[in-house]
């Protein structure tokens, strides 16, 4: 959270050839862990900020979701997930940009689900649908994943996929955003009897409103 505020505070608004947004969003998600029995759904909210300067773009969001076990789930208690996403984007050519960043998701209570941190590396394809309407499709891999309960992920075991859109209103001063983020981590633990698969999967949808400057 502090990082997002620091990011927004540092935005040099007086410069030209740049623009930024600050906004809030509502989030809803689906979280699964270990097996289909541990299945949660929840909703929440968060803050988003982005800044673009020439070919460089940086965006960050912090989202808090309270996950509740669905009916039939073996989970017994709800938990709150606070996820920080940071992405730094560099335009390459055509619709393609390269993207690096990290994700940090903390769970509360700590042992109800796995907290995770990882570095992301991927690409994004952006396309303007029309005046003030943009969409993007992104995909990437998560490297160096760390879990609060231990475990490892193979090189291509942690993947993410995203779909986002932005619709400008009020001559670009207001921006309606939608973002879909799917993560799958093929986590394994070694319980002494060999590797045990304990995968984690989250689908997160965010719908927000941002002020552009």
């Amino acid at each position, binding site marked *: 959270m502090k990082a997002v505020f620091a990011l927004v505070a540092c935005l040099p608004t007086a410069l030209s050839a740049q623009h930024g947004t600050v906004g809030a969003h509502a989030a809803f998600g689906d979280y699964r862990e270990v097996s289909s029995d541990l299945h949660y759904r929840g909703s929440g909210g968060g803050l988003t900020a982005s800044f673009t300067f020439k070919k460089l773009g940086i965006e960050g969001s912090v989202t808090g979701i309270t996950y509740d076990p669905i009916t039939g789930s073996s989970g017994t208690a709800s938990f709150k997930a606070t996820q920080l996403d940071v992405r730094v984007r560099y335009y390459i050519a055509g619709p393609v940009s390269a993207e690096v960043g990290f994700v940090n998701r903390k769970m509360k209570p700590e042992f109800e689900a796995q907290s995770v941190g990882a570095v992301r590396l991927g690409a994004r394809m952006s396309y303007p649908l029309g005046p003030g309407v943009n*969409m993007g499709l992104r995909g990437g891999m998560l490297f160096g994943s760390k879990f609060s309960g231990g475990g490892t992920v193979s090189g291509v075991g942690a993947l993410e996929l995203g779909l986002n859109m932005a619709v400008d209103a009020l001559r670009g001063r207001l921006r309606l955003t939608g973002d879909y983020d*799917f993560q799958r981590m093929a986590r394994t633990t070694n319980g002494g009897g060999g590797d045990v698969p304990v*995968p984690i999967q989250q689908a997160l949808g965010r719908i927000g409103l941002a002020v552009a400057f």
Partner: protein
Amino acid sequence: MRRHLLLVPLLLLAAPPPPPLGAQTIQNATLRRAQEAYDNLDYRQALTLARTAQRERLNGFDRARDYELLAFTYSAMDSILRAVDAFKEVISLEPERDLDPTRTSPKVLSAFQVALTQVLVVRQLRVDSTDFVGGQGAVAIRYTVTQPARVVTRILGGQAPLKIDSAVANGQVNLRWQARLASGDPVPAGSYTVVVEATVGQNNFSASQPIRVTHGAVDTLPHLLSLPGYDYLPETEIPPKSWKPMGLALVYSGIALAGTSALSQGDLGSASFREAEVIGGGLMVAGFVVMLRKPAPQPARGNILYNRLLREQLARRNAEIAQDNIRRRQQVALRVVPTPRTGGGR
């Protein structure tokens, strides 16, 4: 009948000398009588009276008419050599004198032409009136010299005479004078005289033509706001409506759903598409709305390039005009006009 045929050439010869230039008339009474005798084909009487008139006091005009009458009379009497001599006197008195070939018999004309070749005169000195920028034009001067002679053309009237040509010439001569001083500067405004002096041995003849030179400013060129015949083209164009936004939204949403399905861990049960469907649905709604809306103007690359080239061309042309105007402000426009002569040549 035969007598009538003989009279025809005589009548041709008897054609009166053409009237002199201007509206002057013969003042001397004897000369008038001589003219009447010539008109009556009484050549002997005309000859006697013309010679008598020569001994009287004649003004320049009458003297030239007297010699001309003698020349015509000698021609009529087939005394060609005497006719030539008389014409030489006429030419000396009136170098610009010409006979009308349509009203004068060939015999008289040939005598006149022969006389022209035997007298050194500079005739038909003409200076064309002209306007030009100093250093970029010239004044046309032309004259006719009747014998091969060393001809020197000078401009008098300035601080020092300007020799503009010196050559051996015969017949018509065409010169071009740039109206510049020896230093290259344009001649100052004022009145000048073009003097053409022809010399053969001890004989010389000069003719002159006064001219007036005036100075003016050279017009500068206005800067161009556009190139004639070339208009700027619109730099944006509205593309036709297209289903592409909707199609792309559909494709992107489909990829997201398919990717979610493909990446889902089998151990965790069937994937949740709820989140992808909500965002993808929103995206398709946006794509549908964009598809229905009037497309945004798109940059017309060809037109932008064309306009850029046009602007560059215009800027280049204006830079040339500015450079040219700097030069023009340092220039002077000369107007050269011939003025009426006050006397003949000698």
